[in-house]
């Protein structure tokens, strides 16, 4: 591990070449002023430049390496989205400024709502949830609010397939619902008989990702929707895998009642570092009154179009406010710019190339002898390889493969998720990778297995070339300590 900037600190050292001119101290009463210096690192400009440049070089990122982390859609985020979202007119906007001063921003937000409505086939969109998990929470809260408003107080069960993201049952639980898990069949589709068995007058709804976390499209979606609706429940669409169907299939047309979208993921904000994100929600007609606020509304005043925040007064049945203003404005702006750049035809190309790349990679790995978890199915935008045979024959587990790939300069695919496939790698190449990159990745996978079989290569200690070696996962989980304390 390298030194922290705090450890490089020497009292009195400064980097002032770019410091602003000396400003007068703020008028703070004497008793509130501190006597000692704040504990901030003191370093020279060159030290700072070197420190952060070195840190950035340790980064394993989409800017430097192929990043096929399944279920995460680590695609290229065009620089233009970032540049335009950072325009001073956007970045410098004060959230408490009068609405009349923010009409440009509000126009973008209104149009973003409209574009998302169109691409998902829903009837209304609220941009306010600030992360995917909060979008999920909003979705299930709306389902609950809908049943409550109808006096249907018994409905408190949420059905979740066993392949679902862990956030789904967690969300249902947070909303005070009981989770009913249903199994997946051998071909990756939901077991319809099992669904039928759990449906009851207590069913509040079902949470689905389609294509599912197994990387296959749920073929019985219409039957599932009809059955759940007939039982009085609603359908929640987890937008985790929206990238696979953009411009091709719309959750609204699949009869979903509510959907959350990870705008940071599908619509171009660098992600994976813990935020900021955006979990915008789309709803059908039934759930329109319950949308989280604020929503951007449009009206005509004296022949002029005016945009404004809709609040409790406009949506009295709303589940409430999920963020102080409009969610993470920067993420929303990036999504807006991205969608405007890509356009309607571009949306379809995203889905086409995400799917094509995944199927190409899947076919090449299958032909190279890797076992697919669902060999009879076409991949959506991602697919699963299981290393159960390699784990048994040459002790090459999914984790070993992941670490060995790092040494060959490929980010590891998602490992051990979904939980129902043993020794699995969930691989998602995304639409922004070239054929040469995909071929290079296949060659690395093949060579790692070859070296294990022929040369007795041992990957138990891998990675060997990374800034940090194999980490102690148990210690990290049980004794996590991220705080720096000086001696």
């Amino acid at each position, binding site marked *: 591990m390298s030194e922290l900037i705090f450890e490089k600190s020497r009292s009195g050292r400064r980097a002032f070449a770019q410091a602003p001119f000396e400003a007068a101290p703020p008028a703070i009463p004497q008793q509130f002023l501190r006597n000692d210096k704040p504990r901030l690192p003191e370093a020279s400009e060159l030290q700072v430049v070197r420190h952060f440049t070195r840190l950035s070089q340790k980064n394993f990122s989409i800017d430097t390496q192929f990043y096929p982390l399944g279920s995460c859609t680590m695609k290229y985020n065009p620089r233009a989205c970032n540049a335009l979202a950072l325009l001073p007119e956007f970045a410098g906007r004060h959230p408490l400024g009068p609405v009349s001063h923010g009409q440009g921003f509000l126009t973008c937000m209104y149009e973003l709502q409209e574009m998302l409505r169109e691409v998902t086939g829903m009837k209304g969109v609220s941009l306010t949830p600030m992360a995917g998990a909060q979008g999920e929470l909003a979705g299930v809260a709306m389902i609950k609010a809908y049943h409550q408003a109808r006096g249907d107080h018994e409905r408190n069960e949420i059905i979740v397939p066993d392949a679902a993201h*862990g956030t789904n049952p967690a969300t249902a639980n947070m909303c005070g619902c009981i989770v009913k898990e249903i199994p997946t069949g051998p071909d990756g589709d939901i077991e319809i008989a099992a669904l039928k068995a759990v449906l009851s007058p207590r069913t509040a709804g079902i949470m689905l990702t389609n294509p599912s976390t197994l990387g296959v499209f749920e073929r019985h979606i219409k039957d599932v929707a009809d059955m759940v609706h007939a039982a009085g429940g609603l359908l929640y669409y987890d937008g985790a895998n929206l990238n696979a169907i953009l411009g091709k299939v719309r959750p609204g047309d699949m009869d979903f009642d509510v959907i959350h979208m990870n705008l940071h993921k599908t619509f171009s904000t660098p992600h994976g570092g813990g935020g900021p994100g955006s979990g915008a929600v789309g709803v059908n007609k039934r759930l329109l009154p319950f949308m989280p606020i604020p929503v951007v509304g449009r009206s005509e005043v004296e022949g002029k179009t005016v945009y404004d925040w809709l609040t409790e007064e406009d949506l009295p049945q709303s589940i409430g406010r999920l963020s102080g203003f409009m969610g993470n404005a920067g993420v929303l702006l990036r999504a807006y710019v991205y969608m405007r750049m890509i356009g309607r035809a571009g949306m379809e190309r995203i889905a086409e190339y995400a799917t094509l790349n995944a199927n190409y990679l899947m076919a090449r790995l299958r032909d190279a002898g890797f076992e697919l978890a669902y060999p009879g199915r076409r991949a959506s935008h991602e697919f699963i390889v299981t290393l*159960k045979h390699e784990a048994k024959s040459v002790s090459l587990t999914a984790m070993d493969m992941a670490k060995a790939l790092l040494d060959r300069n490929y980010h590891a695919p998602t490992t*051990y998720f979904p939980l129902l496939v043993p020794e699995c790698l969930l691989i998602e190449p995304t639409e922004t990778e070239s054929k040469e990159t995909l071929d290079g990745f296949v060659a690395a996978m093949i060579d790692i297995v070859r070296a294990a079989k022929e040369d007795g290569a041992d990957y138990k200690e891998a990675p060997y070339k990374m800034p940090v070696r194999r980490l102690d996962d*148990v210690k*990290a*989980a*049980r004794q996590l300590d991220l705080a720096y304390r000086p001696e």
Partner: protein
Amino acid sequence: MTELPGDLLYTKDHEWLRHEDDGTVTVGITEHAATALGDLVYVELPEVGQDVESDGEMAVVESVKAASDVYAPITGSVVAVNDDLADDPEKINSEPYGEGWIVKLAPDDEIDESQLMSPDAYQQFLDELDD
């Protein structure tokens, strides 16, 4: 994988149980389950005295990879829990059939062994899972 202990009975959810002389039943998870989960970092245990229902959730084991429910193999009540697991959850990985036991249950009724597997039957069940 080591050989399955011959004096235990097994469930399809990869729990084992052992009849004790005092009429209670000790329950844990099998080596297969512990290996599949990976290194355990946390175990959530039931309260002593708590009633459990056959196939109902009884405890939670959490590893670096996943959290998983442990189901009660029989209906009864909890007479003891393995408190050592609070500090040493990895005992389940190192000694799944010994120090890594999870709970002791007092069965309500005669145990219906038709729902449980002998070591041979469980081994066969595991072999089929692998194929």
